[in-house]
């Protein structure tokens, strides 16, 4: 019982995810600075931001709007992120073997933070927040289908198993899925889905800070905004870890394999940051067309290739 609690709260759980996510978010800012020939903030800058928002700043509540929903949304965002992270990391680090169907549960839990951002934005009673919420909704509609199709393709590749542990075992036996043509296509699609889920630049229209002033988060301040930041930091670690598990052959933490695990995560972060810094923000209709037509087409090609065994 105590051991389970430690799993959930300390090591692969909440604290570990928050600290790693904070460091990865700092790395993201540092890489952005290097790409723009700047020096950039220190690597632990996200922790300063988080502690400042949590400890120092005042939290302002909206005068017109639902205060309970406004304050509950960030808590639910953290809960969703932490639950999905634990369900991903426990089988990945070989602590438990999970249960049959946990990949479906993870799919739904990963969608919770985006939904809570919408709820919080609509509870704020701000017109720009409503614009942000509507864009976030359209973005969810466009990328969730692609994300689900990608998972379906991975499940087909792993021999029709809906259990994370079996997917990892299948990759141990037949090599990582990315080593085939269909695997490469799926990886490209998954990277764009991660980009949209994290709300990074080609798909950051829901919080476009130069256009609608942080959109969905415009009314958040103080500790409520700190919690949203924490959920975002956790997601920036969880989604690359998920991509590692379903396509890059799992994350082992014994011996020299720990180095490969770290390199895989850092590689995905590097890729995400490069895409973020070399692309402009697209309009919401362009994003929908991109996912509905082009990304879905890529996944369907990948599924057909898997049927032919490639």
């Amino acid at each position: 019982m105590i051991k389970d609690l430690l799993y959930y709260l300390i090591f692969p759980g909440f604290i570990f995810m928050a600290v790693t996510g904070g460091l990865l978010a700092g790395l993201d800012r540092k890489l952005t600075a290097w790409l723009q020939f700047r020096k950039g903030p220190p690597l632990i800058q996200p922790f300063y931001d988080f502690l400042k928002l949590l400890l120092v700043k005042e939290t302002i509540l909206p005068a017109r709007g639902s205060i309970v929903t406004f304050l509950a949304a960030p808590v639910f965002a953290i809960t969703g992120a932490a639950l999905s992270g634990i369900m991903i990391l426990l089988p990945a680090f070989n602590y438990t073997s999970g249960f049959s169907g946990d990949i479906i549960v993870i799919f739904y839990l990963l969608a919770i933070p985006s939904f809570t951002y919408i709820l919080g934005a609509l509870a704020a009673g701000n017109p720009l927040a409503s614009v942000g919420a509507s864009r976030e909704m359209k973005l969810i509609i466009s990328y969730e289908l692609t994300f689900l199709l990608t998972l379906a393709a991975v499940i087909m590749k792993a021999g029709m198993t809906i259990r994370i542990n079996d997917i990892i075992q299948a990759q141990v036996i037949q090599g990582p899925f990315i080593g085939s043509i269909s695997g490469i296509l799926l990886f490209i699609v998954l990277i764009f889905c991660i980009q949209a889920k994290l709300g990074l630049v080609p798909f950051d229209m829901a919080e476009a800070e130069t256009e609608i002033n942080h959109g969905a988060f415009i009314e958040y301040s103080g500790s409520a905004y700190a919690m949203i930041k924490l959920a975002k930091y956790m997601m920036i670690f969880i989604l690359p870890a998920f991509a590692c598990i379903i396509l890059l052959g799992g994350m082992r933490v014994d011996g020299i394999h720990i180095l490969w695990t770290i390199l895989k995560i850092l590689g995905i972060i590097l890729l995400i940051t490069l895409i973020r810094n070399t692309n402009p923000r697209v309009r919401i209709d362009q994003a929908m067309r991109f996912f509905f037509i082009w990304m879905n087409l890529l996944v369907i090609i990948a599924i057909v290739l898997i049927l032919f065994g490639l």
Partner: protein
Amino acid sequence: MGLKDYCFKKSLWLFHFGGASCNNCDIEILDCLTPRFDLERFGMQLVGSIRHADVLLVNGSINRRDKARLIELYHQAPKPVLVVAIGACGCTGGIFAEGNTFAGPVDKIIPVDVYIPGCPPKPEAIIAGIVKLLNKK
């Protein structure tokens, strides 16, 4: 210096309010965030919403229409918030001080923590002002 003060100093988020400005100070403020001067080294970044701001940068002469907006903006910011008046117009009124529509320099309207004079102030002067702001608190 406690943890709270340290974290606050290490992560100042800036919100830029331009009054009836001639845009020279705005350009110099943006210059501070470019690769040459790079204020993000110290954790400072420009934010779009006043709800996230720690520092309110005010430049340009404040005329009668801006006055109400500046007061409202100051009350909308989550406390503690620091106010920096940039440029001759923000500090004293400059050449607009005798004007008909002028509504007083910034410190007559909201409390100001640091003044950065100059028309426009160089980015080095703005960075020196920010350093004074950090040492003051």
